[in-house]
Structure formats: structure tokens, C-alpha cells
């Protein structure tokens, strides 16, 4: 994997993450927002991997992405509604 390729990946990922983050704020449906947040976390975990941080990547994937998303989903189920 060349550095150029890595840069391209990172720039693409970064752009997507920021777009997704803005989408989290503005998308109507709360469920989508939660899932997009999970996606951002997952992308971050990829970025951690790219920055030579496998421990962090594993933790971010299992805790930051999966667990947090589950908690948010639970919360949404209890509150309901969008906003």
C-alpha cells in the first residue's frame, strides 16, 4: 500500500466522516442518525488502524462502535420520536 493510496483513503474517509457527522445533526430520522454515528465510529476505528494503533482500533470497534450504538438504540426505543 503506497502512501498515496493511504492518503487517498484517508481523505475519502475523512470527507465521508465529516459529511456523515453533519448528517447526524440534520437527518430527520433518529434511527438513521444513530446508525450513521456508528458508521463514523467504525471509520474512526479504521483510521486508528491506519495510524498504527491496533489496540485502539479493536477497542473503538467493539466499544465505541458496537456497544455505544446498542446503547443509543436502546435509548431510542425508550424515548421514540425524532428530532
Amino acid at each position: 500500500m503506497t502512501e498515496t493510496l493511504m492518503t487517498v483513503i484517508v481523505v475519502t474517509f475523512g470527507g465521508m466522516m465529516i459529511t456523515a457527522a453533519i448528517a447526524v445533526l440534520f437527518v430527520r430520522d433518529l434511527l438513521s442518525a444513530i446508525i450513521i454515528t456508528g458508521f463514523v465510529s467504525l471509520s474512526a476505528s479504521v483510521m486508528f488502524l491506519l495510524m498504527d494503533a491496533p489496540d485502539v482500533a479493536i477497542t473503538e470497534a467493539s466499544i465505541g462502535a458496537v456497544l455505544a450504538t446498542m446503547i443509543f438504540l436502546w435509548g431510542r426505543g425508550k424515548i421514540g420520536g425524532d428530532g
Partner: protein
Amino acid sequence: MIRTLTGLIIVLVLGAVAAAVIPEMQMREELQGVGYSYVSRGMDDTGSSNLVTAVIVAYRGLDTLGEVVVLFCASTAVVLILTLYPIGIKASEPSRVVAFTAKVLPAPILLFGVYFIAHSHISPGGGFPGGTVIASVFLLVMLGSSSVPDGRGRLPAIESLAGLSFGLLGFWGIMTVGQFLNNAFLGTGTPGTIVSGGLIPLISIAIGAKVASEFSGVFKAFRNTGGTV
């Protein structure tokens, strides 16, 4: 709308003002400060070939103890609040897919989690992700059955024991070499083997058990409908 714009302006101004720091944050070629020392001495000091684990569990074990306490407090608080004000839903009969998954997957996932924990000083992983993975097994089992599993007292007991053993390991360090949470006083073994890194594996197990029992407790509380927990 006005609020959204105002917020945007505040945030953008903040970003613009803080951006002046960029020239001072240039990329480095060499490790600096304590990072260099960790890398150069880490293996000799701790016997852990995973330097991140060496930092987490050995050098800065106090942070990790704090981290354990954070999780402990958060889970205690969540369980406490949800016990006082139960808002769970009655567990419905699980679908067959879920029930099947709940039967098949636990064993491999459990193995995965245990590996994370036991090998934290050799390879990526550690007590926190390992514990979370194990807790997800619990969640899976719970989802696969129609009733809330009756772990009355058992989860807190594991939690207590795990926490106590972490704490007592800390005091052991103080009593032997006068340094709280020191884990290298028994010798550090050969880096790269499973029995190495001093007490790191033991501490990882304690952390893993604690994290697993805490998250399991939280999952259970999420499903609590007002019965006794």
C-alpha cells in the same frame, strides 16, 4: 435556525482562533518526551511486548484503575437508576434466528474475548475490549431466551471480586516494592510468551472479568421491568 447559525458561528470562530496552533504541531520524525522512554525501556521494565499494554497496565496503572472505577461507577449508577425507575420491556419470545444465533455464537465469541484478555501483553487487545466481547455473549444469551437470566447476586459478586483483586494487587505492589500497582516485582518473564509481563495478565483478567460483569449488569438493567435485580 438562528440558533443553528449562531452555534455554527461560535464553533467556526473557535476553530479559526485555535487554528493558530497548527504551525506548532508539525509532524515529528522522532519520538519525543516520555514516548521515547516508554519505547526504549518498556520491554525491559515490564516484560510486555505490547507496549500499549505496558503503558496502560504497568506504567500508568493508576489511570487504568481510574478507568475501571469510571466504568464501575457508570454501571452501578445505570443499574441503580434503572432499578429505582424500571422502564424495561417484557422480553418477548425470541425469533428463531436469534435463538439459533444465541445458541451457536456464544462459544466462539467467548473464546475470542478470553483471547483478547489473556494475550493483552503480547498482541492487541486487553481487558476492556475483551470484557466487552464477553459481555456481548451474555447479551446474546439474554436475547436468546424469553426471560431475564437469573444472575441474582452472581454478577455483583464477580464484579466485587474482580475489583477487589485489582485493588489488592495494587496493595501487593506497595507491600513488596513500595509502589502502588507495581506489577513487575515478581520478575517479568520472557517477553512474547504467555507467562510474561509480571502481573499484567492477572490484572488483565481482573479487568476483563470486571468489565464483562459490569456490562452484563447494565444489559440486564436495560431489560429490567421492575422485578428484583
